[in-house]
Protein backbone atom coordinates (compact mmCIF):
# COMPACT_ATOMS: atom_id res chain seq x y z
CA UNK A 1 0.00 0.00 0.00
CA UNK A 2 1.29 3.44 -0.94
CA UNK A 3 1.73 5.93 1.87
CA UNK A 4 -0.28 8.53 -0.02
CA UNK A 5 -3.06 7.62 -2.43
CA UNK A 6 -4.39 10.10 -4.95
CA UNK A 7 -6.55 9.44 -7.99
CA UNK A 8 -4.50 10.61 -10.99
CA UNK A 9 -7.60 11.44 -13.03
CA UNK A 10 -7.73 13.01 -15.52
CA UNK A 11 -10.58 15.17 -14.31
CA UNK A 12 -12.41 17.46 -16.72
CA UNK A 13 -15.00 19.99 -15.57
CA UNK A 14 -16.82 22.96 -17.14
CA UNK A 15 -15.87 26.48 -16.14
CA UNK A 16 -17.63 27.55 -12.95
CA UNK A 17 -17.90 24.03 -11.53
CA UNK A 18 -16.85 23.08 -8.01
CA UNK A 19 -13.87 20.76 -8.07
CA UNK A 20 -13.12 18.26 -5.33
CA UNK A 21 -9.69 16.66 -5.10
CA UNK A 22 -8.80 14.09 -2.45
CA UNK A 23 -5.97 12.10 -0.95
CA UNK A 24 -5.80 9.39 1.65
CA UNK A 25 -2.75 8.43 3.62
CA UNK A 26 -1.66 5.61 5.85
CA UNK A 27 1.03 7.12 8.09
CA UNK A 28 -0.54 8.76 11.12
CA UNK A 29 2.78 10.51 11.85
CA UNK A 30 2.20 13.03 9.06
CA UNK A 31 1.73 16.43 10.64
CA UNK A 32 1.62 19.02 7.88
CA UNK A 33 -0.53 18.79 4.78
CA UNK A 34 -0.11 20.67 1.58
CA UNK A 35 -1.55 21.04 -1.87
CA UNK A 36 0.75 21.92 -4.71
CA UNK A 37 -0.24 23.02 -8.19
CA UNK A 38 1.96 22.16 -11.12
CA UNK A 39 1.58 23.63 -14.56
CA UNK A 40 3.00 21.79 -17.52
CA UNK A 41 6.82 21.81 -17.59
CA UNK A 42 6.99 23.84 -14.38
CA UNK A 43 7.88 22.90 -10.83
CA UNK A 44 5.20 22.40 -8.21
CA UNK A 45 4.14 25.56 -6.36
CA UNK A 46 2.53 25.65 -2.97
CA UNK A 47 -1.19 26.35 -2.99
CA UNK A 48 -2.40 25.54 0.50
CA UNK A 49 -0.70 24.54 3.76
CA UNK A 50 -2.51 23.17 6.80
CA UNK A 51 -1.38 21.73 10.08
CA UNK A 52 -4.35 20.45 12.00
CA UNK A 53 -7.67 18.87 11.20
CA UNK A 54 -10.28 21.30 9.93
CA UNK A 55 -10.78 23.71 7.07
CA UNK A 56 -8.60 26.44 5.66
CA UNK A 57 -9.90 28.83 3.05
CA UNK A 58 -7.99 31.06 0.65
CA UNK A 59 -10.08 32.75 -1.99
CA UNK A 60 -11.68 30.12 -4.19
CA UNK A 61 -9.67 27.34 -2.56
CA UNK A 62 -10.57 25.38 0.57
CA UNK A 63 -8.38 22.70 2.10
CA UNK A 64 -9.82 20.16 4.51
CA UNK A 65 -7.92 17.78 6.74
CA UNK A 66 -9.49 14.91 8.64
CA UNK A 67 -6.71 13.25 10.60
CA UNK A 68 -9.01 10.69 12.17
CA UNK A 69 -9.89 9.37 8.71
CA UNK A 70 -6.46 10.11 7.22
CA UNK A 71 -8.16 12.03 4.45
CA UNK A 72 -7.47 15.43 2.94
CA UNK A 73 -9.37 17.38 0.33
CA UNK A 74 -9.00 20.46 -1.82
CA UNK A 75 -12.07 22.25 -3.11
CA UNK A 76 -11.97 24.78 -5.91
CA UNK A 77 -15.03 26.99 -6.27
CA UNK A 78 -15.98 28.77 -9.49
CA UNK A 79 -13.24 26.91 -11.36
CA UNK A 80 -11.49 28.77 -14.16
CA UNK A 81 -9.60 27.56 -17.24
CA UNK A 82 -6.46 28.94 -15.59
CA UNK A 83 -6.94 26.35 -12.83
CA UNK A 84 -6.10 23.64 -15.36
CA UNK A 85 -3.02 21.96 -13.93
CA UNK A 86 -1.90 18.92 -11.98
CA UNK A 87 -2.70 19.11 -8.27
CA UNK A 88 -0.49 17.19 -5.88
CA UNK A 89 -1.21 16.52 -2.27
CA UNK A 90 1.82 16.34 -0.02
CA UNK A 91 2.44 15.70 3.62
CA UNK A 92 5.29 16.22 6.00
CA UNK A 93 6.62 14.04 8.74
CA UNK A 94 9.38 16.20 10.23
CA UNK A 95 12.13 15.80 7.63
CA UNK A 96 10.21 13.61 5.28
CA UNK A 97 7.72 14.70 2.63
CA UNK A 98 5.54 12.34 0.63
CA UNK A 99 3.55 13.24 -2.46
CA UNK A 100 0.45 11.84 -4.02
CA UNK A 101 0.55 10.89 -7.69
CA UNK A 102 -1.15 14.15 -8.67
CA UNK A 103 -4.56 14.70 -10.26
CA UNK A 104 -4.62 16.27 -13.70
CA UNK A 105 -7.45 18.80 -13.89
CA UNK A 106 -8.81 20.45 -17.02
CA UNK A 107 -11.36 23.25 -16.72
CA UNK A 108 -13.10 23.79 -20.04
CA UNK A 109 -14.39 27.26 -20.99
Amino acid at each position, binding site marked *: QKEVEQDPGPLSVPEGAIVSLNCTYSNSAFQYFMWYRQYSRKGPELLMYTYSSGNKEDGRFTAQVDKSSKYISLFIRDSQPSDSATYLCAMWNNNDMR*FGAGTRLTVKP
Partner: protein
Amino acid sequence: EAGVTQFPSHSVIEKGQTVTLRCDPISGHDNLYWYRRVMGKEIKFLLHFVKESKQDESGMPNNRFLAERTGGTYSTLKVQPAELEDSGVYFCASSQGPGEELFFGEGSRLTVL
Protein backbone atom coordinates in the same frame (compact mmCIF):
# COMPACT_ATOMS: atom_id res chain seq x y z
CA GLU B 1 14.41 37.40 -5.41
CA ALA B 2 15.58 34.47 -7.54
CA GLY B 3 13.80 31.18 -7.02
CA VAL B 4 15.26 27.71 -7.14
CA THR B 5 17.09 27.22 -10.40
CA GLN B 6 18.02 23.97 -12.03
CA PHE B 7 20.31 23.14 -14.90
CA PRO B 8 20.04 21.66 -17.46
CA SER B 9 16.34 21.86 -18.14
CA HIS B 10 16.58 18.81 -20.39
CA SER B 11 19.33 16.30 -20.93
CA VAL B 12 19.34 13.42 -23.41
CA ILE B 13 22.07 10.84 -22.93
CA GLU B 14 22.78 7.25 -23.85
CA LYS B 15 22.72 4.39 -21.44
CA GLY B 16 26.06 4.11 -19.68
CA GLN B 17 26.89 7.80 -19.92
CA THR B 18 27.18 10.21 -17.02
CA VAL B 19 24.99 13.21 -16.31
CA THR B 20 25.32 15.87 -13.64
CA LEU B 21 22.33 17.94 -12.62
CA ARG B 22 22.74 21.17 -10.75
CA CYS B 23 20.46 22.97 -8.33
CA ASP B 24 20.84 26.47 -6.94
CA PRO B 25 18.49 26.91 -3.98
CA ILE B 26 17.03 30.16 -2.78
CA SER B 27 19.72 32.15 -1.02
CA GLY B 28 19.68 31.51 2.71
CA HIS B 29 17.78 28.24 2.51
CA ASP B 30 19.73 25.66 4.47
CA ASN B 31 17.44 22.81 3.49
CA LEU B 32 17.77 21.39 -0.01
CA TYR B 33 15.89 18.41 -1.35
CA TRP B 34 16.08 16.30 -4.47
CA TYR B 35 12.99 14.57 -5.81
CA ARG B 36 12.33 12.52 -8.90
CA ARG B 37 9.24 11.85 -10.93
CA VAL B 38 9.32 9.02 -13.42
CA MET B 39 6.61 8.71 -16.07
CA GLY B 40 3.20 8.04 -14.59
CA LYS B 41 4.45 7.82 -11.03
CA GLU B 42 4.34 10.11 -8.05
CA ILE B 43 7.12 12.50 -7.09
CA LYS B 44 9.52 10.56 -4.90
CA PHE B 45 11.97 11.81 -2.34
CA LEU B 46 15.64 11.17 -3.05
CA LEU B 47 17.56 13.03 -0.37
CA HIS B 48 17.73 15.99 1.94
CA PHE B 49 20.67 18.28 2.72
CA VAL B 50 20.92 20.57 5.69
CA LYS B 51 23.65 22.96 4.65
CA GLU B 52 26.39 20.67 3.34
CA SER B 53 25.37 17.60 5.34
CA LYS B 54 23.18 14.80 4.09
CA GLN B 55 20.31 14.66 6.54
CA ASP B 56 18.46 11.83 4.86
CA GLU B 57 19.42 9.94 1.75
CA SER B 58 17.03 7.05 2.18
CA GLY B 59 15.38 7.72 -1.17
CA MET B 60 18.49 7.37 -3.30
CA PRO B 61 17.80 4.38 -5.56
CA ASN B 62 21.32 2.94 -5.72
CA ASN B 63 25.01 3.78 -5.72
CA ARG B 64 24.91 5.07 -9.27
CA PHE B 65 23.49 8.27 -7.82
CA LEU B 66 25.77 10.69 -6.01
CA ALA B 67 24.65 14.00 -4.55
CA GLU B 68 26.88 16.69 -3.18
CA ARG B 69 26.44 20.10 -1.70
CA THR B 70 29.90 21.44 -1.14
CA GLY B 71 29.93 24.66 0.88
CA GLY B 72 26.24 24.35 1.59
CA THR B 73 25.18 26.39 -1.42
CA TYR B 74 24.38 24.73 -4.74
CA SER B 75 23.99 20.99 -5.09
CA THR B 76 24.78 18.51 -7.81
CA LEU B 77 23.25 15.14 -8.52
CA LYS B 78 25.37 12.84 -10.64
CA VAL B 79 24.10 9.69 -12.28
CA GLN B 80 26.88 7.36 -13.37
CA PRO B 81 26.41 5.19 -15.34
CA ALA B 82 22.89 6.14 -16.40
CA GLU B 83 20.31 3.41 -17.04
CA LEU B 84 17.06 3.56 -18.97
CA GLU B 85 14.97 3.53 -15.80
CA ASP B 86 16.66 6.72 -14.62
CA SER B 87 14.64 8.73 -17.13
CA GLY B 88 12.31 11.19 -15.50
CA VAL B 89 12.12 14.69 -14.14
CA TYR B 90 14.45 15.54 -11.27
CA PHE B 91 13.17 18.31 -9.04
CA CYS B 92 15.14 20.30 -6.54
CA ALA B 93 13.46 22.17 -3.74
CA SER B 94 14.62 24.31 -0.87
CA SER B 95 13.18 25.62 2.38
CA GLN B 96 14.31 27.70 5.31
CA GLY B 97 13.49 24.99 7.79
CA PRO B 98 12.03 21.48 7.92
CA GLY B 99 8.27 21.49 7.63
CA GLU B 100 8.26 24.93 6.04
CA GLU B 101 7.17 25.76 2.54
CA LEU B 102 9.18 24.01 -0.11
CA PHE B 103 10.05 26.06 -3.15
CA PHE B 104 10.59 23.95 -6.22
CA GLY B 105 12.71 24.47 -9.27
CA GLU B 106 11.28 23.78 -12.70
CA GLY B 107 12.97 20.42 -12.85
CA SER B 108 15.61 18.79 -14.99
CA ARG B 109 14.18 16.34 -17.48
CA LEU B 110 16.50 13.39 -18.05
CA THR B 111 16.04 11.07 -20.99
CA VAL B 112 18.25 8.00 -21.16
CA LEU B 113 18.24 6.26 -24.54
